[in-house]
């Protein structure tokens, strides 16, 4: 009998080990794809650099189109912002049954909102704008670093990323109680994007912020940034929910975001920031920065005297861009008006890029000149939402240093190794080691750091010898069942207590055994989702993969060993995944340990059945660049209407295809347009267009 027991144990442990391995692989897949997406920002930046430096516009229309991409911002002085985003003139019809807010807000308003949102109601635009105006007024008085003391309310609850997942916020309030004079909360950024209810979360958080200003504290996250929102869904969500007033609402959010405090300090001992720190993080500087100052997304260094090609410093794809108003007294709109009055010859690309740079520069100068005249707040001009040029002679190191401080706080990640290095994976901030943490804590007499920014399987994780705590509050972030969310409570002893949860609105579809202890089905489901995403990525790199495989197939047999397959795939995708472990899930049939790679790739393509008639290489490009394409479309679509003109669509493609080196004729583009029936009066609904190219099904 003993022997029998041992056998069973053997078998069982192997089973558990396999499950554990599968779980880790799945996690890896999701994470690497997520971070690779953030890397896309750099590609986007390269595209813009290409436009600036290498592309020769063939017509003045094309030239104008390109410049519009760079100078798409509208700038407003704060006063004008208020006028533009005025809410008082908006009438609320009697038929509106949602919550009605009046200011100053009372706890009843909060409850009304919670109930309304639970019933999927929508807050009227007027109240949203009103709320935003009041929030802005409140935030402006706050310092960059909020101070919280545990002697007022016994415990402080700290929550991490929510990413538009309203169910998680409800769960937190349900388990922990609503904010109140005896219940303090700190929300550590990334309230928006990805999830579908970012707006509701913000409304609720801002409402509580105004009702209990002493007890509720918000930190800015890297997603509280309109450039990031363009890509990750918040912009889309707002425009979808508020078709008439969406643009105003977005403008207000843009402004409110840059007024969010940067950090929170508890009892002078625990620092809470969204991302992390770097070896140059300076709390004194952070306290003094004008946090609402515009911080550009893409930056260009001054042109080197020696080379004619200007250096484009690809610092990050996405930064905090606290766009802010500044102003042009004459008109709220900064339009492209070359002062020189001469049209550059479009044939000469150097001319063109010089002209473009000069024009943008001139705009800056105009701004600055007007700034000198205006005596109100010393705000920096809004360059554009995309570009910020720095004058050669201006001492800009201070600005640059300040900007780096904020960037590091919002984008950095801890790493196990010592030291501090650039965070190339995300394209922003840095990786900081335990020594950096140690030095920092010592310098400011702190006990530990709390940060978010990274999804953790159990909702929280310690590192750096328990000196850094990551708290992540969006459960099921990658997929249903992928991870738990958590929040942490700190009492006067500053010992963290964790509460974990998993919003299971759809998890009820899993059976009891699946939820209880034997997570096989759960792992399978999450795994399935991860592999779908991975297969899409593979498909998106078909051409590159074929070349890589061919390199190992000198005799042109059409086959490749599995070992070489793994090496080739990693060299193309660069996701750092354990391909040999993943192979059984990705490659179904092999003969003698050899894979017929062409038919394997064809099978991958087969999943995209509906787009058979589109040239496969084009399809590939679309997949590979979908999120960049989306961002570009959104930039062009200044009204945030979701529509761009057919001509704009065509032009975008032409530019893109020349950058990507694909052949795309006018007919090709027309085919593209016609193939997906989304034409609306000569305008393209680019949302629908992009949706048509999604392999990975979105969860409901």
């Amino acid at each position, binding site marked *: *009998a*003993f*022997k*029998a*027991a*041992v*056998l*069973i*144990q*053997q*078998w069982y*442990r*192997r089973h*558990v*080990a*396999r499950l*554990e*391995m599968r779980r*880790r*692989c799945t996690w*890896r897949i999701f994470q690497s794809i997520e971070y690779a997406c953030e890397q896309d920002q750099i590609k986007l930046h390269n595209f813009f650099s290409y436009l600036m430096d290498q592309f020769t516009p063939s017509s003045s229309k094309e030239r104008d189109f390109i410049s519009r991409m760079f100078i798409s911002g509208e700038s407003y002085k704060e006063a004008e912002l208020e006028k533009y985003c005025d809410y008082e003139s908006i009438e609320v019809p009697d038929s509106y049954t949602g919550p009605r807010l009046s200011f100053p807000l009372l706890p009843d308003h909060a409850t009304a909102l919670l109930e309304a949102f639970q019933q999927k109601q929508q807050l009227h635009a007027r109240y949203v704008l009103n709320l935003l105006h009041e929030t802005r007024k409140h935030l402006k008085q706050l310092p960059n670093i909020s101070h919280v003391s545990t002697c007022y309310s016994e415990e402080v609850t700290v929550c991490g990323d929510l990413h538009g997942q309203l169910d998680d916020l409800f769960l937190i309030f349900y388990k922990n109680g609503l904010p109140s004079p005896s219940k303090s909360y700190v929300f550590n950024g990334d309230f928006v994007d990805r999830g579908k209810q970012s707006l509701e979360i913000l409304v609720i958080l801002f409402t509580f912020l105004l009702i209990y200003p002493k007890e509720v504290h918000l930190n800015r996250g890297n997603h509280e940034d309109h450039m990031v929102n363009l890509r990750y869904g918040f912009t889309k969500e707002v425009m979808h929910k508020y078709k008439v007033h969406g643009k105003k609402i977005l403008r207000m959010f843009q402004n409110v975001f840059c007024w969010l405090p940067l950090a929170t300090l508890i009892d002078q001992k625990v620092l809470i920031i969204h991302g992390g720190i770097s070896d140059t993080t300076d709390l004194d500087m952070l306290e003094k920065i004008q946090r609402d100052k515009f911080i550009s997304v893409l930056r260009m260094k001054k042109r080197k005297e020696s080379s004619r090609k200007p250096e484009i410093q690809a610092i990050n794809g996405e930064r905090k861009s606290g766009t802010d108003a500044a102003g042009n007294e004459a008109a709220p709109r900064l339009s492209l008006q070359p002062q020189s009055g001469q049209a550059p010859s479009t044939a000469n690309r150097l001319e063109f890029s010089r002209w473009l740079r000069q024009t943008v520069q001139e705009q800056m100068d105009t701004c600055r000149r007007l700034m000198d005249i205006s005596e109100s707040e010393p705000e920096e001009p809004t360059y554009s939402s995309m570009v910020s040029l720095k004058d050669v002679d201006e001492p800009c190191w201070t600005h640059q240093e300040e900007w780096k401080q904020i960037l590091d706080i919002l984008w950095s990640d801890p790493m*196990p*190794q010592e030291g501090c290095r650039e965070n190339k994976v995300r394209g922003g901030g840095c990786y900081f080691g335990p020594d950096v943490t140690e030095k920092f804590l010592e310098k400011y007499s702190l006990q530990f750091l709390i940060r978010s920014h990274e999804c953790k399987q159990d909702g929280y994780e310690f590192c750096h010898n328990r000196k850094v705590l990551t708290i992540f509050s969006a459960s099921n972030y990658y997929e249903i069942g992928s991870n738990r969310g958590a929040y942490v409570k700190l009492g006067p002893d500053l010992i963290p207590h964790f509460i974990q949860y998993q919003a299971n609105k759809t998890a009820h579809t899993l059976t009891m055994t699946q939820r209880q202890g034997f997570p096989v089905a759960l792992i399978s489901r999450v795994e399935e989702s991860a592999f779908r995403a991975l297969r899409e990525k593979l498909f998106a790199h078909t051409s590159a993969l074929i070349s890589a495989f061919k390199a190992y197939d000198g005799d042109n047999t059409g086959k490749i060993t*599995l*070992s070489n397959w*793994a090496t080739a795939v990693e060299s193309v995708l660069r996701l750092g995944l*354990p*391909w*040999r*472990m993943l192979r059984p899930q990705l490659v179904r049939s092999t003969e003698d340990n050899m894979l017929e790679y062409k038919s394997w790739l064809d099978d991958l393509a087969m999943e995209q059945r509906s787009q058979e008639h589109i040239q496969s290489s084009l399809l590939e490009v679309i997949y590979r660049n979908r999120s960049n394409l989306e961002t570009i479309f959104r930039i062009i679509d200044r009204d945030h209407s979701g529509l761009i003109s057919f001509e704009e669509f065509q032009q975008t493609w032409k530019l893109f295809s020349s950058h990507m080196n694909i052949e795309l004729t006018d007919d090709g583009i027309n085919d593209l347009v016609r193939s997906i029936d989304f034409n609306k009066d000569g305008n393209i609904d680019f949302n629908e267009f992009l949706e048509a190219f999604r392999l990975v099904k979105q969860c409901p």
Partner: protein
Amino acid sequence: LVAEIEKKIMEAFEMFDRESNKTVDVREIGCIVRSLGCFPNEAEVQELLAKIEVEEPGGFVHLEKFLPVMTKVLLDRRFRPIPEDIILHAFEALDENKCGYITKEDLVKHLTKE
């Protein structure tokens, strides 16, 4: 073939390498070995560990030490999977009442008797 085996081992090892410094906690070795397709029992895992030097203090295993030992295990095809019918016999042996199932408590009792 050896190179391929080594790559497989390294991949599995890396999944448990928390600090990305080519070491894993000694307690994870069992899991790694099993996820590579082996079915050792606890005694066999301990034997294996004895062959690999474990770094003290802290109980870490370095990839350098693990790799050759594990490669040999895979090449020798040790700790092969237990065929299904044998497992079935094992369950039957524990099922004293011959009722076709074992309760969780019984199973736990037997497994902890060691």
